[in-house]
């Protein structure tokens, strides 16, 4: 395949991927903020972790910072804790490509699970949750379940994206 055609396809693929990420963020804000549906998985975490895999380390960190500030916009205490969590998780997500290639559904579920768990752990620590009397055991009980829920949501989102865009 000629190089020009390949570049063009890659560019279209990148554009459709970032549209997909924007849709995830809008969906999160509409469902969680607009309709107060707390049972909806945290799609900002999904958007952060999936998007980070397509960026450089610094780009992913900046992207994490922006999403973190957005996630913290209604936080009355520990404002910035999610930003710290997203910056770290997104940077590691970007660097994870050096270790793991490919985007199989199995990989996505494992990657997003550990990424979301890491976000929960950093948010818990940076937000001073223990000082506020929250049990650290939550990180071993509720947090993995939340992370699994988010990971499943990420897989469903990727299936929908690939079905609609035709990209792999």
């Amino acid at each position, binding site marked *: 395949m000629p190089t020009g055609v390949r570049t063009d396809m890659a560019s279209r693929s990148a554009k459709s991927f970032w549209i997909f990420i924007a849709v995830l963020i809008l969906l999160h804000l509409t469902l969680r903020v607009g309709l107060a549906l707390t049972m909806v998985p945290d799609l900002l975490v999904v958007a952060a972790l999936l998007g980070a895999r397509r960026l450089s380390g610094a780009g992913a*960190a900046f992207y994490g910072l922006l999403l973190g500030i957005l996630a913290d916009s209604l936080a009355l205490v520990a404002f910035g804790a999610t930003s710290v969590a997203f910056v770290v998780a997104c940077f590691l997500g970007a660097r994870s490509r050096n270790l793991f290639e490919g985007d199989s559904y199995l990989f996505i579920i494992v990657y997003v699970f550990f990424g979301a768990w890491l976000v929960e752990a950093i948010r818990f620590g940076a937000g001073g949750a223990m000082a506020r009397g929250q049990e650290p055991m939550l990180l071993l009980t509720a947090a993995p379940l939340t992370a699994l829920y988010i990971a499943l949501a990420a897989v469903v989102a990727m299936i929908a994206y690939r079905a609609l865009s035709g990209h792999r």
Partner: protein
Amino acid sequence: MLDFDGTRRARRKDAAIAAAILLVALILLALPVEYQQPVRQGLRASVLQPFLMLQGQVTQRRGSAVDVGQIRAQRDSLAALAAAQASLSEENRQLRASLGLQQRVGEAFIPANVIRAGLTSAESTFILDVGRADGVFVGSTVLTADGMLGVVWEVDERSSQAIDWTHPDFRVSAMTADGTAYGLIEPRRGPSRESDMLALTGTAFQVDVRPGRRVVSSGRGGLHPRGIPIGTVIGIEEADTGWRKSYLLRPAVRPEATVHVMVGVREGGGDLGDVWQVTAPPDPLQDDDADGGTD
């Protein structure tokens, strides 16, 4: 897609920039609240504005779809509360007038709608559709016909953000409705948000509070009015040998189901004991203070 392998030098530069961004995030976290506030307010007034407006509309529509009988009962209770408030404020006005104090105008509470955002970071908080322009201030009491729901923490011109009693930082000075025990209210987390409880902590060890006793705000500190129901004692939580006891309470108000509230617009506490038939005698500590002041 960007090249992520790069040279060693490029990777080091990339890591250095990421570290600088992490530093920015840490600075954001460490910033004093007064510097964080404009960032939050800016986001609420811009990016989040359409979504918050959407929920405001949804809340109003949902409210109209709720069982009419339930609404009527709630409205009657709130009307009774407002009526009692009016008579109290009139009584206060007359007392103040007789003491030569400056006349204060307006009701002590105004109605508001609750808007809840489902963001993880906004857990245990809610937004009210009234703000500084309506007289709301930081520390305003938020209550329903059943009792206290929370406290306003941040005020914008036309909206405000409050914490409910499930928030880890929620604290109110409280007493039993008969005035036999005084203490401090703190939240207690349950396995799920629906099972969150309250605790009356720091009560005197020699005083025994029986299950079923009502606990109301004591008015100590002058932030919240006296006599607002907070919960009902369901049992002892902890007895710190020889010093003090803590009791677990069943909360008077469940935050999840609350849509319509009343928000305090008058600073300086007050007494709402008559509204909820609180029979407690005057606070001995405040009597002591008053005596001390006149000496």
